[in-house]
């Protein structure tokens, strides 16, 4: 545990203070051996299944369904029936109360969901407990309040639901992304068919039990699990009026092509390569926390991650020194340990992608630094990494790595910072660190990004609209604006198609 040694002052200074394991109890979660799909308020048996695992240990957790096109069709039909048959005529205030119920149940069962999220997805329990779950419940709470107030959000527009929404979500914030999708869709009066990501189906499946406890009418929310082929079936299903997709830019483009000419509404929330910009008058230690939070939060599996650090040259050395020292205090390990800061990489596939890009970085001439940490034998792990000596043209400065890898570049003036920050096909987010208010606003005005964080990073709130410019997607989630994609309005064009 700890050894003490005598120093010249004859004071006992410990060589090391190791924290004992502090595991969150796993038995709060009860897993079934096998899950089907949740369609029309009931569990239907899945014709085909696959195994979902814990990425931290590679241990199998459950068999879940690999939805066939026929099963997808069944879900869409159920959603359509629920919409035509009742949900759209449930009074808005009653709709609101269902959503409030869902929010409250999620709050009650938050710990159970947080443990399952960390187990299935790999993120530290500290994050699922303190960020994912509270925000997911808050999203339902926030949108519940809009359900019977739509005419104030869209005056003179006769806001009406669209019908059936097909929703495809990623593996980085499984339950939170589910909340971001389902809450506004239901508040607006739609019904949904949602597919969680292939590697993280379990919290979505457990969510169906929340729906049971909230007594949500059958067919309003339908959940089918599966891989990309299931997603494709949802996109092309005839009975779906709107598609909402969060995931890679590559797949987003494919969906946009697929829907071209069909008249179906579409929103996309895709990748990013955000610049996190540090000026020389920034509050330094806090800026370093912001850098760390920007890229190592959730192992960097964040579309809006601050993956490019743009540091003003005059402050380069202190920032990099502090950053490297700070990296050494990051605890990488068991996601269920309450002291873990960085968890497991979500899948073997993602780990390989990270390794490939990091190797490319080294080959292209960047200098790599990795905090010393002991990584577990089993499971998918990657040490927090920093690249210096990075040129804009390197792959690690251009492509989204989606891992705990930071590329550091420098700039001299605000104009140069803006230029470099915007020099990317992406435009999801950006960070600005300076104590000067006017500069924050000046930079915010010029950064071509849907979310600008000043003197903070990775802050989310259901009332705050989120979404990208350019190839980071279109449409906004959160806030009053997050309702628009789920409504028919009198005088507006359908966004995106």
């Amino acid at each position, binding site marked *: 545990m700890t050894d003490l040694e005598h120093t010249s002052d004859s004071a006992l200074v410990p060589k090391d203070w190791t924290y004992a394991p502090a595991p969150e109890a796993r038995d709060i979660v009860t897993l079934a051996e096998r899950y089907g799909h949740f369609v029309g308020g009931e569990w239907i048996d899945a014709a085909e299944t696959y195994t979902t695992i814990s990425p931290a240990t590679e241990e199998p957790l459950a068999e879940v369904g690999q939805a066939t096109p026929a099963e997808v069709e069944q879900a869409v039909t159920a959603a359509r029936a629920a919409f035509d048959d009742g949900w759209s005529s449930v009074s808005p205030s009653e709709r609101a109360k269902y959503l409030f119920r869902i929010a409250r149940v999620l709050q009650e069962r938050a710990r159970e969901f947080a443990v399952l999220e960390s187990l299935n997805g790999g993120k530290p329990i500290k994050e699922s407990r303190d960020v994912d779950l509270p925000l997911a419940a808050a999203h339902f709470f*926030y949108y519940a309040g809009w359900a019977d107030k739509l005419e104030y959000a869209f005056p003179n527009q006769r806001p009406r639901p669209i019908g059936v929404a097909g929703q495809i979500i990623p593996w980085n914030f499984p339950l939170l992304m589910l909340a971001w999708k389902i809450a506004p869709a239901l508040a607006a009066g739609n019904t949904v068919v949602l597919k969680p990501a292939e590697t993280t189906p379990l919290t979505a499946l457990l969510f169906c039990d929340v729906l049971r406890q909230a007594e949500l009418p059958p067919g309003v929310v339908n959940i089918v699990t599966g891989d990309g082929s299931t997603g494709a079936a949802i996109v092309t299903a005839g009975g779906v009026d709107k598609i909402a997709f969060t995931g890679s830019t590559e797949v987003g483009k494919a969906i946009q092509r697929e829907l071209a000419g069909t008249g179906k509404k579409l929103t996309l929330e895709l990748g990013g390569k955000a610049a996190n910009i540090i000026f020389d008058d920034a509050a330094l230690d806090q800026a370093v926390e912001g850098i760390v939070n920007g890229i190592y939060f959730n192992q960097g599996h964040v579309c809006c991650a601050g993956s490019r650090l743009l540091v003003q040259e005059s402050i380069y050395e202190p920032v990099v020194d502090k950053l490297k020292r700070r990296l050494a205090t990051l605890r990488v390990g068991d996601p269920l340990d309450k002291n873990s800061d960085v968890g497991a990489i979500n899948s073997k596939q993602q780990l390989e992608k990270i390794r490939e890009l990091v190797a490319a970085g080294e080959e292209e001439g960047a200098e790599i630094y990795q905090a010393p940490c002991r990584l577990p034998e089993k499971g998918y792990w990657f040490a927090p990494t920093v690249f210096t000596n990075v040129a804009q043209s390197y792959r690690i400065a251009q492509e989204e790595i989606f891992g705990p890898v930071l590329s550091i570049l420098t700039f001299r003036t*605000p104009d140069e910072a803006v230029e470099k920050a915007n020099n990317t096909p992406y435009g999801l987010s950006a960070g600005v660190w300076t104590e000067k208010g006017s500069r924050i606003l000046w930079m915010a005005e010029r950064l071509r990004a849907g979310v600008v964080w000043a003197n903070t990073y990775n802050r989310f709130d259901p009332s705050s609209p989120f979404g990208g410019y350019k190839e980071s997607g279109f449409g906004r989630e959160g806030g009053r604006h997050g309702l628009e994609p789920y409504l028919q309005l009198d005088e507006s064009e359908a966004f995106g198609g």
Partner: protein
Amino acid sequence: MARLPVKKTYKLFIGGAFPRSESGRTYEAEGQNVARASRKDARDAVRAARAAFPKWAAMTAYNRGQVLYRTAEMVEARTAEFAELCSGRDEVERSVDRVVWYAGWADKFAQVIGSSNPVAGPYFNFTVPEPTGVVATLAPDEPPLLGLVTRIAPALTGGNAVVVVASETHPLAAIELAEALATSDVPGGVVNILTGHREELAPWLAAHMDVNAIDLAGADGSAPDLERAAADNVKRVVRGRADAQSPWEIAAFVELKTVWHPVGR
């Protein structure tokens, strides 16, 4: 032999506690002895509201919304009791739904009432609503529960603390509401409920220099005198209706603050 019920004592609700009137007086309403508040009770209530206001206003809007939703939970749970003290179950359900409606505005009305303003110059300019402070509310006589809830919910949603003069003829619903509030996570002092003679209490609240707004919903004939007294510290005078539901009801109890900041390198 029939069991003898333990009868309830109807007291005031001030600072989260249930004191009797400092004057020791009661009056009879709806067949019960009900505390008859004095001007000193009104003074104490305003003090409690003023003390509780900063904490309530500083909570996140989301948090306030959740507290108001829980108030609805507590009222819903007491539907049977409330139904006996007003026109019936229907009124109780409408009251619960109204509280839920306003709870849902807490973290949204700033997005509808506030704005970012495109001024003609290199400045960032935004307008935000802020609670006005302590609101004195004269609750309407009818409907006994719905009217009271209709008047206080928007003020609370806006972040204010309130001092209510309950309906003189139908005070019991107000006291039952106080009991529901006391179990609902609303911080003590955010809502204070005085029962008694409206004509005795209202002028003291209308003239009170530390009350920021007065809602004259239950004022009937005496409104002009109260409005005159309110002018002494330029109170916001709200002529509330007993059955209104709109975000502009919230707006009546907020101030608007506009902030400028230059935009430059």
